[in-house]
């Protein structure tokens, strides 16, 4: 059965169909729901791709946007410029349509024609097996939809359950903690402080100064500013646990602005997530980029 918080953002026309169809499914079977204007609805998950008979129109997508934004599109103005909206529960909704740009910057997206609902899954204990190989600054590397945020969340929970540790999370897109009105909805352990919806670079400094964390967790590093902030955090005496988009360590090394990560040996543990067939696998590397473990 699909999660109730996902059902409530779907257009009325689709709710019953999807409930009926996913009745025999477990919550984790569906990873994405793709809604496209005048095209069949697609369900994507561990069992592959399923096409539903329901065709949605422009009006249905507009209706879905009303529910997704909680009738408050204005509140997601900034997120919409990035092309996605994160809703309660940490689910991310990708948006495509007609882009209104000004001075080469996205002002908004209108006439929405596609929605990609990426369902967030909290997998408690998914890092239990590898936690003993992890130390110091941690970087999780994987392509999209491999579960790097899920793994980061569980690593941070494991750290937060250790006496004497204090974890600070800068949750720019509300995907790690899935805060609702500032309160984390996901299990992050007892020693965790969350800055929700805060830009990474600002948030890391803010946490470092105000909450004295032993670990700071951030999702999706990417820009040079992110790397500079990481350097400052490490200089400031805290450890960092972060994720980054990439196929592998070799892939990241090819990117000019990310090369620095390896040249300066910023991280002590690297975790590569990849997919072999339908199965995910993890490879753990140490600071010297030697493989320590593979699961």
């Amino acid at each position, binding site marked *: 059965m699909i999660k109730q918080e996902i059902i409530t953002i779907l257009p009325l026309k689709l709710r019953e169909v999807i409930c009926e169809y996913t009745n025999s499914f477990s919550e984790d079977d569906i990873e994405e729901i793709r809604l496209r204007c005048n095209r069949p609805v697609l369900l994507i998950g561990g069992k592959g791709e399923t096409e539903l008979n329901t065709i949605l129109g422009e009006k249905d997508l507009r209706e879905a946007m009303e529910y997704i934004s*909680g009738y408050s599109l204005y509140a997601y103005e900034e997120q919409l410029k990035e092309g996605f909206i994160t809703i309660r529960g940490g689910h991310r909704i990708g948006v495509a349509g007609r882009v209104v740009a000004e001075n080469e910057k996205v002002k908004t997206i209108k006439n929405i024609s596609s929605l990609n609902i990426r369902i967030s899954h909290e997998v408690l204990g998914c890092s239990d097996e590898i936690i003993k190989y992890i130390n110091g600054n941690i970087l999780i590397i994987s392509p999209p939809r491999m579960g790097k945020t899920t793994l980061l969340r569980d690593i941070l929970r494991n750290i937060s359950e250790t006496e004497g540790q204090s974890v600070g999370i800068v949750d720019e897109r509300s995907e790690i903690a899935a805060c609702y009105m500032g309160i984390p909805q996901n299990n992050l352990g007892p020693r965790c402080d969350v800055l929700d919806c805060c830009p990474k670079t600002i948030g890391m400094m803010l946490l470092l100064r105000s909450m004295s964390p032993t670990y700071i967790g951030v999702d999706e590093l990417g820009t040079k500013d992110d790397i500079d902030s990481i350097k400052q955090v490490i200089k400031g005496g805290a450890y960092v646990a972060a994720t980054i988009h990439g196929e592998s360590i070799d892939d990241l090394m090819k990117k000019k602005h990310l090369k620095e990560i390896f040249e300066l040996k910023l991280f002590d543990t690297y975790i590569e997530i990849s997919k072999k067939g339908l199965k995910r696998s993890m490879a753990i590397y140490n600071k010297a980029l030697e493989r320590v473990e593979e699961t």
Partner: protein
Amino acid sequence: MKLLGIIMICTCSSMLGFMQGERLRQHYDEQIYLKKIVMLIRGEIRYNCGVLSEVFENVSRKVKEPYKDIFSQLSGSLSKGDGETFNDIWNSTVIKKLNGTKLFERDIEGFKELGENMGYLDTQMQLNYIDLYIDRLSGEIEDTKDKLQGSIKLFKALGIMGGLLLTILII
């Protein structure tokens, strides 16, 4: 006996006049309170940037009954995701229940229009629209205030005079 009757008629009609005057005063107070509520909504949107269910939940904590109950219910209905439009929810929770307040029909109509333009605009447009409503409401409050003293006096006088007239007619 006659004297008692005269006193009774005059007292009742005067009371009616006073009550009508008091109703106008209460309407004026209610309009000012409504303006305060809209300013709270504006502040929540401007500074907290929350979704409307959060906005109305926060507002409900800061206002008195019946508004407390009205906005709490509105927030609950918006969070449910039952598939209703914002307009339907606004009309069935807020507008329907405002009829039980001291507001006049035209005030409620104005508030209904505010609901028709909530939610789907960008923040600046949303705030501009609320500002426009506040300006309009302020104008109406000024109008009510201007007429208030005169109207109260008029109703009181009408009450007393009406009572006397009725007495004369009966005698």
